[in-house]
């Protein structure tokens, strides 16, 4: 039987549990479904499938804890074709060396104590600073609201000449528009939502990464597709151009970072994020302005700094693992290529020295997950945004808030500074991109 999908606007409400909706949403949904045949049919199907899924019988076989049995019993273990693995006792399996011994533990505790004391002191200073700065901190002024997207906007990039903005959305389109007037220059589509957009430093190309697994590179002059890169096996979530505009680093939920030549499409290297035995999805990548390094972060709690030529890690930075577990959502290099800012799921932005990992500052002004971080081209400020719906602009080295932007009504998905460091384009799950003044003082 034909299965017409439910109305886009109601699909989410239809899919979640009725009790998860507010009373107002329940009433609105009921009213809509009553008059919409497609949603009625979808709702009936969802109820049926939900009930069937919940009623799935328990497994007919249970995992046999053979891992605990003596090695002699291993022969009885069953194996899957092509992926057999001998059963072993836990103790037979080589474990990586422990990271803590008695002395290191003691040292860790002492250092931890010092660190906590330092943090308390730093926080006191920061809060004192913020209390004075908050009163002085400005609220960003909206210059333009771009509202031609029909779904969440999760990617934004500014043209190197500062005249245009490219935005990518869950509506599957990339739209290129005038930063001052909002006039659409051109747009193109992917087969699934667009999660990353990057403008080449020479201004010639726009690259976009999508959940359709591809990276499309478009020639801005001709407004034509220049290349489609298909090297990933899952969603492409992040992109960065090399400063010479010759290469793109693309990160994906296939757990790889791939660096490839834009002109030829030839792969320079593929890097498995985190570790081959425990690969994790890539959320963020940034190419150092001097062209020599690439920072990559994702669903592990660490950021790797790679040699951009070889893909060899030159430094690993461990985010503090907070109560909700660390996920690196965003990374940004300082313009002088010496420091990195990484936005974390725990609501912090950590600024640290790229090659020593030494912390410079930790910004804690957000009340929820940080999803976007951008370093101003003049190096003075960092803008960060996330699930608390605000964009906060703060001093890069001191972490002092200088400006808060509250123009969005939903999560902030991406941020980009204008090349002159005066404006910010913020993309949001409220389906808009807003351009606003970011200068202070």
């Amino acid at each position, binding site marked *: 039987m034909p299965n017409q999908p439910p109305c886009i606007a109601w699909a989410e409400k239809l899919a979640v549990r009725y009790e998860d909706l507010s009373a107002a949403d329940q009433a609105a949904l009921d009213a809509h479904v009553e008059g919409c045949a497609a949603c009625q049919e979808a709702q009936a199907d969802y109820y049926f499938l939900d009930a069937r899924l919940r009623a799935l019988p328990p497994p007919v076989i*249970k995992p046999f804890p053979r891992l605990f049995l003596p090695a002699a019993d291993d022969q009885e273990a069953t194996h899957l074709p092509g992926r057999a693995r001998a059963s072993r006792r836990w103790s037979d399996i080589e474990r*990586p060396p422990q990271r803590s011994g008695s002395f290191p533990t003691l040292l860790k505790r002492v250092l931890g104590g010092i660190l906590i004391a330092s943090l308390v002191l730093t926080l006191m200073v920061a809060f004192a600073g913020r209390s004075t700065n908050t009163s002085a901190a400005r609220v960003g002024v909206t210059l333009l609201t771009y509202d031609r997207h029909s779904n969440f906007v999760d990617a934004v990039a500014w043209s190197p000449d500062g005249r245009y903005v490219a935005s990518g959305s869950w509506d599957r389109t990339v739209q290129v528009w005038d930063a001052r007037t909002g006039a659409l220059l051109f747009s193109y589509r992917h087969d699934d939502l667009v999660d990353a957009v990057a403008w080449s430093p020479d201004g010639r190309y726009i690259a976009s990464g999508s959940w359709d697994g591809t990276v499309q590179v478009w020639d801005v002059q001709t407004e034509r597709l220049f290349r489609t890169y298909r090297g990933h096996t899952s969603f492409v979530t992040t992109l960065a151009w090399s400063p010479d505009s010759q290469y793109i680093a693309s990160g994906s939920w296939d757990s790889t970072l791939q660096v490839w030549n834009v002109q030829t499409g030839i792969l320079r290297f593929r890097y498995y994020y985190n570790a081959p035995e425990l690969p994790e999805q890539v959320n963020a990548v940034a190419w150092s302005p001097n062209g020599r390094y690439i920072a990559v972060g994702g669903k592990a709690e660490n950021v790797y700094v790679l040699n951009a030529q070889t893909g060899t890690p030159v430094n690993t930075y461990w985010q503090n693992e907070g109560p909700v577990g660390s996920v690196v959502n965003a990374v940004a290099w300082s313009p002088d290529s010496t420091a990195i800012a990484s936005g974390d799921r725990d609501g912090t932005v950590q600024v640290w020295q790229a090659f020593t990992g030494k912390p410079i500052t930790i910004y804690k002004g957000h009340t929820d997950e940080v999803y976007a971080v951008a370093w101003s081209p003049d190096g003075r400020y960092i803008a960060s945004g996330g699930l608390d719906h605000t964009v906060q602009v703060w001093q890069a080295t001191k972490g002092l808030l200088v400006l808060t932007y509250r123009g969005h009504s939903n999560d902030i998905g991406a941020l980009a500074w204008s090349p002159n460091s005066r404006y910010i384009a913020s993309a949001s799950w409220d389906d808009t991109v807003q351009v606003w003044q970011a200068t202070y003082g």
Partner: protein
Amino acid sequence: MSSYQTWDSPASDASSEECHLVVQAQAGNQSAFEALYERYNNQICRYLIRMVGNDGVGCELTQEAFLRAWEALAGLRDPTRFASWLYRIATNCAYTYQHHAKHLHLVSWDVYEGGLEHLSVAGPEKQVEETELLKLALAQVSATYRPCLILYVVEDLPQRKIADLLKIKESSVSKYVSRGKEELRQIYHRLLKEQRVPARGER
């Protein structure tokens, strides 16, 4: 759901007993890890079976997941995050398996044995037939949506907990569930249609 209570307790609020077990296991204590295995074995197994749509493979992957967890346990920085961490390992195991299975053109034993045509019989087997179809359909839902769908519908977890386990935005959960449900619906009906064709002797 039977597993609700266990999953509902946030990993960050893991009992001190569990944290103690994790710390002991990190120090190489095999018994402590066995206790953790006992604690999580069933729910990880159930999750993996739903992920891959096959009891045998799911059980095998459960072993694989615990093996990987044991090998990598020293790298877990926060013992209170053990459940979430283990869950991600299990998810990765499922993804890896399905990636390899796709390339090797492995056929699920359930499918091979029965075949879809086999399911189209009238009578009391109808329930079994539907169940098998649903398991097959669920295993074909996009890898990104499937964990959300299983945790939300089958395990009945709250959205915040799912976001925590899968390390995604809480606001993404309903989106993924919505897309997952619609995919499941389309796949299920397609399979149903494919199954019916030979039964009617139309090919």
